[in-house]
C-alpha cells in the first residue's frame, strides 16, 4: 500500500458529485415523465410532479424527534436481539490472538502485526453484523407488519429510512468504539518488552494516551542499554512527500530510473558511482530549526561489495537558481528499514571550488521558488546519489520524505477506527436502502456485492475495462476458453468476431458504469497507515471517506424514500 495518495479536494469532489448525481436524477426524472406520459397521458407527468413536490415537502418537514424515535428503536432492537454478542467473539479472539502472533520478529514488526490484527478484527467482526442488521431490519418489519403500525402515525417514509440509518450507525459506532478501545489496550499489552524495558505497563499506557508525551528511558548502566526514545516507536509519522525525477548516468533528466529486471516497476534504480541520481523536490513552508529526512531505499547489487557493509548514499541539497550544491555527509543505508537524517538550519560543507568549509542557511540559501507549473511553491531540492559503483539504489516517490513532528499514536489509531466506522455507515446506508425495495436475503447479497466490487474485485475490473487484462471481455474470453485459444493470439478478423467484440464493448461499458458508481472502499481502510507508523492524513484519507459516505448517503435517502413511498406495504 502506498501512503502517498493525492489529497482530496473538496470543491473538485463536490463538482464531480453534483455532475454525477444531478445527471442521474435528471435522466431518471426525464425517463419517468416520458413513461408516465406514455401510459397515463397528460395526467401522468402531473402525478410525477406531485410526487416530486411531496418529496420536497417531506424532506423539508422532517421531525428530529421522530427520526430519533426510530433510531432509538433500532438500537434497542439490536441490543435485545443480542446483536452485541459480537463482543464475545471479539473478546475471545483478543484473549488468544497473542499466542499466534510471532514474538520472534523485530519489535516494530510485532507492533505492526498487533495493530493490523486489532483493526482488521474490529473491521471484519463489525461488517457482517451491520450488514445483516441493516439489510434485514425493514424487510422484517414489513413481514411482521410492525412497520404498518408505524406508518399509520404521522411518520414520513424518509424519517423511517433516516431513523434506521442513524440507528444502525449508532449501533456500529458503539461496537467500533468499544472494540477500538479494547483493541488499543490489547495492542499496548502486545508491544514487546524490548521496546520499552524501563517502563511499567501503566506508564506505557499513560505514554500512549499522551500523559507522558516526551518520556524517554533512562540508560541502564548495568546492562549497558542505550537511551531509547520510545515515543518515536509509537507515534505516527507525518510525511511530506515531494516530486521525483531521475538523472541518468550522462546527467540527463528522465522521468524513470533504471529497471533492474524486476517485473514490479514501483521502484526505479539509480546507478552507483555515476552521475545518476534521484531528485526530490519538497514543498516547504515555515522555516524551522531542523528538517528531518526519512527514507527507505532498496539495494540491488551486481557484486558483493564491501562485506558487512551496506550501500553508501549521499544527499546533496541543490538550489539551481543560485547554482548551489551542498553535499551532506554520506551514510550507509539500512535495508528493509527507515533511514533518518537531520539537517540543521545552518549547514556546513566543504566547498570544492573554494577549497574551504562554508556554512549556508537551509531556508535562505537552499530553499527556492520553483516556477514549475505543477509545483509553484518554495521547495527544498534533495538529490540522492549512490556512491558504490556497480551497485544500484531503488526508490519511488513515497520512499523519501520530510518527516514533520510526529503525532500521537492514540490519535492515529482512532482515526483508523473512525475510518472503519465510516465504512460501516456506508454499508448501513446501502443495506437500508436496498432493504426498502427487496427482501432481506436479496438486500444482503446486493450490499455484499457492492462491498466485493468496491474492494476485492476493483483492481480486476479496472484491468478489464482498460484492456490491461489479456483475453478480452466476457464473450471473447468464453470463446477463447471453448476453442482452447491462447490469450496472446490475435482473433481472426471475421464478422462473428466483430459481433462478439461489439457485445463485449457493451458489457464492458456496463462494467465501466458499475466501477464508477461503486466507490473504492479501500479508502476507508486506514489501518495500514497506523500499522506502518504513519499518521492518517485528514486531507487524503479521512475527508475523502467522510465525503464519500455523505455523497452516497444522500442518494440512498432519496432512493429509500421513494421506494417506501411508492410501494404498497400491504400489497398481496
Amino acid at each position, binding site marked *: 500500500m502506498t501512503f502517498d495518495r493525492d489529497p482530496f479536494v473538496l470543491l473538485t469532489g463536490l463538482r464531480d458529485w453534483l455532475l454525477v448525481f444531478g445527471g442521474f436524477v435528471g435522466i431518471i426524472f426525464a425517463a419517468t415523465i416520458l413513461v408516465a406520459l406514455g401510459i397515463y397521458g397528460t395526467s401522468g407527468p402531473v402525478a410525477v410532479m406531485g410526487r416530486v413536490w411531496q418529496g420536497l415537502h417531506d424532506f423539508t418537514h422532517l421531525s428530529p424527534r421522530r427520526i430519533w*424515535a426510530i433510531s432509538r*428503536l433500532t438500537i434497542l432492537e439490536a441490543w435485545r436481539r443480542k446483536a452485541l454478542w459480537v463482543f464475545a467473539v471479539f473478546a475471545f479472539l483478543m484473549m488468544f490472538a497473542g499466542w499466534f502472533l510471532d514474538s520472534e520478529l523485530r519489535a516494530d514488526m510485532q507492533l505492526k502485526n498487533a495493530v493490523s490484527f486489532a483493526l482488521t478484527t474490529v473491521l471484519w467482526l463489525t461488517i457482517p453484523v451491520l450488514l445483516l442488521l441493516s439489510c434485514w431490519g425493514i424487510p422484517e418489519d414489513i413481514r411482521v407488519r410492525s412497520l404498518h403500525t408505524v406508518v399509520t402515525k404521522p411518520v414520513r417514509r424518509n424519517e423511517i429510512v433516516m431513523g434506521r440509518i442513524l440507528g444502525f450507525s449508532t449501533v456500529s459506532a458503539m461496537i467500533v468504539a468499544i472494540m477500538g478501545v479494547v483493541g488499543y489496550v490489547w495492542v499496548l499489552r502486545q508491544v514487546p518488552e524490548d521496546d520499552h524495558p524501563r517502563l511499567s505497563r501503566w506508564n506505557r499506557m499513560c505514554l500512549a494516551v499522551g500523559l507522558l508525551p516526551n518520556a524517554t528511558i533512562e540508560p541502564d548502566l548495568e546492562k549497558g542499554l542505550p537511551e531509547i526514545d520510545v515515543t518515536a516507536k509509537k507515534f505516527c509519522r507525518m510525511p511530506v512527500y515531494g516530486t521525483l525525477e531521475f538523472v541518468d548516468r550522462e546527467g540527463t533528466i528522465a522521468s524513470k530510473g533504471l529497471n533492474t529486471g524486476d517485473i514490479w516497476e514501483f521502484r526505479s534504480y539509480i546507478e552507483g558511482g555515476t552521475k545518476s541520481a534521484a531528485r526530490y523536490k519538497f514543498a516547504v513552508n515555515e522555516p524551522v530549526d531542523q528538517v528531518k529526512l526519512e527514507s527507505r531505499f532498496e539495494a540491488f547489487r551486481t557484486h558483493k561489495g564491501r562485506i558487512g557493509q551496506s550501500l553508501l548514499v549521499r544527499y546533496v541539497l541543490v538550489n539551481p537558481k543560485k547554482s548551489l550544491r551542498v553535499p551532506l555527509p554520506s551514510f550507509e543505508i539500512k535495508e528493509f528499514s527507515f533511514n533518518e537524517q537531520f539537517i540543521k538550519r545552518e549547514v556546513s560543507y566543504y566547498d570544492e571550488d573554494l577549497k574551504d568549509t562554508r556554512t549556508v542557511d537551509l531556508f535562505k540559501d537552499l530553499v527556492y521558488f520553483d516556477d514549475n507549473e505543477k509545483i509553484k511553491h518554495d521547495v527544498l531540492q534533495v538529490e540522492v546519489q549512490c556512491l558504490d559503483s556497480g551497485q544500484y539504489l531503488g526508490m519511488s516517490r513515497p520512499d523519501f520524505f520530510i518527516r514533520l513532528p510526529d503525532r500521537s499514536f492514540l490519535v492515529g489509531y482512532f482515526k483508523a477506527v473512525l475510518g472503519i466506522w465510516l465504512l460501516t455507515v456506508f454499508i448501513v446506508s446501502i443495506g437500508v436502502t436496498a432493504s426498502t425495495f427487496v427482501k432481506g436475503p436479496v438486500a444482503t447479497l446486493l450490499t455484499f456485492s457492492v462491498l466485493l466490487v468496491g474492494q476485492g474485485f476493483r483492481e480486476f475490473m479496472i484491468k478489464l475495462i482498460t484492456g490491461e487484462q489479456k483475453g478480452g471481455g466476457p464473450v471473447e474470453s468464453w470463446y477463447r476458453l471453448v476453442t482452447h485459444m491462447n490469450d496472446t493470439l490475435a482473433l481472426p478478423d471475421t464478422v462473428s468476431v466483430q459481433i462478439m467484440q461489439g457485445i463485449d464493448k457493451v458489457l464492458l461499458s456496463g462494467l465501466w458504469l458499475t466501477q464508477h458508481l461503486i466507490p473504492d472502499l479501500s479508502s476507508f481502510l486506514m489501518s495500514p497507515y497506523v500499522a506502518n507508523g504513519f499518521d492518517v492524513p485528514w486531507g487524503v484519507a479521512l475527508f475523502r471517506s467522510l465525503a464519500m459516505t455523505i455523497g452516497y448517503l444522500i442518494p440512498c435517502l432519496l432512493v429509500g424514500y421513494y421506494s417506501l413511498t411508492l410501494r404498497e406495504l400491504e400489497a398481496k
Partner: protein
Amino acid sequence: MENQPVIQIKNLTKIYRDFWGRKKVRALNSLSLDVKKGEVFGLLGPNGSGKTTTMKLLLGLLFPTEGEITILGKPASDVSKNEWIGYLPEESYLYRFLNAEETLDFYGRLFDMSPQQRKERSDQLIELVGLQNARKRQLKEYSKGMTRRIGLAQALINNPDLILLDEPTSGLDPLGSRDMKDLIVKLKNEGKTVVMCSHLLADVQDVCDRIAILYAGELKELGRVEDLLKEQNETELLTSKLSPAAIADVEAALAKHSAKLIRHGHPTNSLEDLFLKTVQKSQERPGQRYVPTASEKS
C-alpha cells in the same frame, strides 16, 4: 357539525395485481360512503368482502385503483392526517421486544409528544387497558388479549379524533370484549368518530350507530342499525309477567284490531349478560361455588 363527514369515499375500487401487472382480484368495486363526525360506524361482511382492504386504503397502506378518499378533509396519501387518527390493526402489529411502557413511549415520540406528555398519557392508557401489572414485561410474553389491549392503548396515544378499529374484540375474553365496547361508547360520547369492522355481529349491533354491509367488494346495505334491523310489519310489547287469562284477553283485544299474537313467553338474557353477572358475583364473593339444585341431583 354532527353531520359533517369525517370520511368521504367516492367510487373506490381496488384491484390487486400480480407481479406482471395482471388483474388478480377485484377487492373493492365502486364503493361510496360517508362517515359522519361523532358516530360509530361498522363495516360488516364475510371474509374477502373488502372490509380490511377499505380500512387499509383509508390508512394509505394500499393505493386505490380508482376513486377518491378524503379523511378529515385530507387525501388518504397525506401523512399529516394521521396526527388525528388512531388505528388498531386486526392483529396487534407491534415491536415484541419492547415492553408496554416503551411501546407507548415509542408511539408517543412518533406524534412529537414531549417526554412529560408521553409519560402522563402512557400511565393513563396503561391503567385504562388494565396492564398496570405487566407494564415492564416485553410484548413477546403477552397473551393475545393483552396484546390487543396494548394495541388499543397505542391507537389512543394521540387522543385521536378518528379511531379505526379492525376486529377490536377479536382475541378478547367476554370481559375484555365488554370493556372494549364500553370504551367505544365512551369515545363516542367524547365526540370521537369510530370506524370498526368486525365479524361479531352482536358487538357491532351493541355499539354501532350506522353500518355498511359489504359483499364481494360491493356495498349491499348502508344505514342506521335500528332502521336496518327494524321489522316494519311487526310490533313488540314488553309487559310485566302475564297470567294465561291475561294473555287470552290480549289476544282478544288484538283480534279486534285485526292483529294476532305471534309469540309470547319470557324474554331471555344474552349469554354475555349471564357471563358478566357470574364473573361479577365471583369477584364479590370469592370461594362461592356452583351448587346443583335438587332436581339436578335426582
